[in-house]
């Protein structure tokens, strides 16, 4: 028996239309990712966050909403001939960026490499623990987020919780991330870390100078990574790792400024990037200063 076409009654249409309209209105009222929030509303949210964090940690916390400076594209250069593998950058970063102490989260991973094998990750060891560094026959390669211009992590994120800002920093909206870890699978540099359980941050160790896309305390179940110390660099300062390095292996600046030291390095030194064949176009360069 064939079906007779049934006409939609006005009541049915009205019900459906009303439901759709209500749904649309609701989507306008709901939370959005920080990327899409207008500036004034963002300011309000940030002030709320400042109050929350100040209460939780007992310090006067400021959360910056500094946007990217026009005409700025950040670049980083690391002198492999200088790095001695002392890991002071790792721990300076931990303090500056309010990383969890237990479970341990490190945004920078220093690899001890064999001089015999060169930059070959099959012979990389992040767990080296000799009496002193540098050790004979080894060189040291710190790895952190490369802030790729063609970032695979940004491409794969299903919710758009991570994106690249105009000044080149790849940021994460910690309140939007669902913790699916696609970005971690996509990152060729192991630069992203996940909060497998509640991060622990002792009150005394909190750095109260925060940025909403940077070092504000994260929750369990979200991804985090190096942000080039966005709270510092957007205020004109160097990232903490640059300042902490005792041998001056780390350099930082504005790639668009022809007089910056980063440009000088690009123009005068033998510069390379990791895993170049993957076409991620990192803005973190390695060079040999000597």
């Amino acid at each position, binding site marked *: 028996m064939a079906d007779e076409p049934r006409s939609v009654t006005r009541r049915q249409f009205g019900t459906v239309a009303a439901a759709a309209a209500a749904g649309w209105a609701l989507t*306008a*009222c709901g*939370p*959005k990712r*920080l990327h*899409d*929030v*207008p*500036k*004034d*509303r*963002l300011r309000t*949210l940030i002030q*709320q*966050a400042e109050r929350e964090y100040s209460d939780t940690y007992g310090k006067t916390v400021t959360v910056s909403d500094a*946007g990217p*400076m*026009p*005409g*700025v594209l950040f670049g980083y250069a690391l002198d492999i001939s200088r790095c*001695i*593998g*002392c*890991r002071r950058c*790792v721990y300076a970063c931990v303090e500056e960026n309010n990383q969890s102490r237990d479970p*341990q989260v*490190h945004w920078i*991973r220093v690899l001890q490499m064999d001089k015999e094998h060169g930059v070959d990750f099959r*012979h*990389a*060891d*992040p*767990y*080296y*623990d*000799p*009496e*002193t*560094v540098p050790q004979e026959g080894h060189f040291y390669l710190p790895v952190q987020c490369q802030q790729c211009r063609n970032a695979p992590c940004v491409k794969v994120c299903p919710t758009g919780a991570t994106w690249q800002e105009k000044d080149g920093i790849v940021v994460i909206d910690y*309140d939007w991330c669902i913790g699916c870890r696609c970005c971690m699978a996509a990152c060729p540099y192991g630069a992203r870390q996940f909060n497998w*359980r509640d991060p622990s941050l002792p009150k005394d160790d909190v750095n109260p100078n925060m940025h909403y896309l940077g070092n504000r305390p994260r929750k369990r179940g979200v991804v985090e990574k190096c942000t080039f110390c966005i709270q510092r660099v957007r205020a*004109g300062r*160097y990232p903490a790792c*640059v*300042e902490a*390095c*005792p*041998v*001056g292996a780390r*350099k*930082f*600046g*504005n790639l668009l*400024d022809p*007089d*910056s*030291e*980063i*440009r*000088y390095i690009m123009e005068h030194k033998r510069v390379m990037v990791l895993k170049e064949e993957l076409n991620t176009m990192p803005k973190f360069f390695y060079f040999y200063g000597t």
Partner: protein
Amino acid sequence: MVIVRCPPRRALLVLTCLVLPLSPALLACRGGMEVTAADASQAAESRGPAPTHELRVEAPPPPFTDGIFPCSDCHNDTDLPVNPVRRPLVDMHDDIVLKHDEEHRWCLDCHDAKNRDQLHLAGGEAVPFEESYRLCGQCHGEKYRDWRVGVHGRRIGQWNGAKEYLLCVHCHNPHQPKFKALPPQPAPTRPGRSPQQPQAAPAPGGASGGR
């Protein structure tokens, strides 16, 4: 955070109001060398590397040992006559072991024999301790050129403003400039299987292993 959508026009207006005040920062947006400290507008005048002998850098004072300076307290014509003969020192400064081209050089190749409160270049020109980099730069030319533009040496200060310089001697002991090996800070803990399990101590050598 609970956030609400906002009409695009208003957002644009707010954004413009935020960006406009930032535009003077553009002037400060530079990475070059500074002839004098901190003033961003002054920085706009000096572009490109300055000629070597005119470079003056604001840096913290040289890290003298306590009480050692001024050297002329002892090294003056009355108390201690100049002995320009190359020899190992026994009475004083014997704690300084020279490991810096010691085969060919000794103290008075850098320290000025006539006036110990200064150093001297190869050609004899006097150089105050505050400009010791000029002396280092004679032999270590590439390092000096790199240091001038901020590429060599520890970087502190502002990437888009006044760069803070340190003298060579703030990091390098001029008598034994090679860095000593440092004890590394702790290795990262290996990924463990459960939160209750204590993290295994890092094994010496070898990246592999998991539990």
